[in-house]
């Protein structure tokens, strides 16, 4: 019960925080809505607000594998980057997968 409470509270918290006005279907999506460590820092640069004009890639609703592959490639220095190569190196592969999965589930 404790665990479910935590997931649901944070799932809603982040979904709402990120501007999702639609109903969050619990409990199916609840677990995947938990923000894994580090995920919230991404939105400093990667816009969540659809009104924002930015050259930086949006992560919301993007395919999890696509995000994971890109970040792992940044981490390995196999994809050109300005800053993502330096940031990706701060996360384990598991952490990267978890963050990617969380953003992938954030479809409006």
């Amino acid at each position: 019960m404790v665990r479910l409470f935590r997931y649901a509270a944070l799932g809603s918290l982040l979904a709402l925080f990120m501007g999702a006005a639609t109903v969050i279907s619990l409990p199916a999506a609840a677990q995947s809505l938990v923000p894994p460590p580090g995920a919230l820092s991404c939105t400093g640069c990667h816009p969540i607000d659809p009104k924002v004009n930015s050259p930086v890639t949006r992560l919301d609703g993007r395919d999890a594998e696509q995000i994971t592959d890109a970040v792992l490639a940044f981490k390995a220095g196999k994809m050109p980057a300005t800053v993502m190569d330096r940031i990706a190196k701060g996360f384990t592969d598991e952490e990267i997968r978890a963050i990617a999965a969380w953003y992938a589930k954030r479809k409006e």
Partner: protein
Amino acid sequence: MKRKIDRRTFVAGAAAGASAAVLARPAIAQGVSGNVVIIGGGFAGSTCARVLSSVPGNLKVTLIEPNETYTACPFSNLVIAGLRDIHQQEFGYEQLAFRGVKVVHASASGVDADKKQVTLSDGTSLTYDRLIVAPGIDIRWDGLPGYNEAAADIMPHAWKAGPQTILLRQQLEAMEDGGVVVMTSPENPFRCPPGPYERASLIANYLKTKKPKSKLLLLDSKDVFSKQRLFLNAWKELYGDLLEWVSLSSGGKVTSVDPQSMVLRTDFATHKANVANVIPPQKAGHIAEVAGVTDRSGWCPIDPVSFESRLRPGIHVVGDAAIAGAMPKSAFAANAQAKACAVAVAMMLADKPPIEPRLINTCYSLVAPDYGITVAGVYKPTNGQLLDIPGAGGTSPLDAPADFRKQEADYASGWFRTITAEVFG
């Protein structure tokens, strides 16, 4: 009007989500309840308010901020250089209020950590279950002989954006070609470690473009600074002799100033300025001291997981006022810390342990309008502090083509639009 509709949809959505939860899991619908008071409506405090306003349950969120308009520091160096309007730096609190945050435009004058009570300048008081202190910085008016509040009207610091930013801009505009601009940079720690060097770059850019016979002298109390080699290389390439950096070991430490004669003194020399920008020593905003959360350094020691004060339980500190280990005092860091802190506060109010965070910082600096550079870091709690994750972070490459620098400048603008929309939009 459109906002009203959004609000209704938003509430309906949240309610539907909650009722679905009631059926499935009774505990979920209870949400989080309690009373959170936040002091300070900058990037740190406003981000906390924004996140906490979305917590399901009966959480009451109050933001105490004396100003009705927030003037952001990031990008304010462009205003000083005449490349940006100050109004592009200004943000209101309407959206936070619209999201259910009670925004109180008053100053906090007292904190009683035992009674869990904040006193306001108008004499009223508020009680809290958890208090978040995010007052940013204050100038140490006793930190540089000759530099006091009156002196700042003549030698602006412009280290809190607003009238000081405009004053420095006006002084640069009024200066004749051939004048001498003197800047000073303080010892660590201070708000925005690369900020003095970005400012020097952009003032040099203005002088080179509009007043090329002028000179900019940057007197530094340090030998080492953020993105140093990138800045020094770019200065040599772009500004040549127009910009001179005087390091600590070359006699750069300013020991006193005299605003009447427009003189800045070091141990070795006396510099006469036409325009003087003194970036003075700093400390945590005054209310942090009143609340008893500052240590002898003038800054606030915190737990790196919950951001709870090491000195006063129930009070959390985020942003520039906090001692955040290896994290710099930047808007990006303040925003990242505030999100982690807000989640931790919500968890703690629900009697759950906070989750260990991972935090990112990226500081963009403009060396010229189309020439951006960055320093980045990734942090985690280590031995009781927020420390760098080894192998991650670092600065932009020293050798990079112009289009790379241009891309970082474009990303810098994108970052500013994104973060301000996330916090105030």
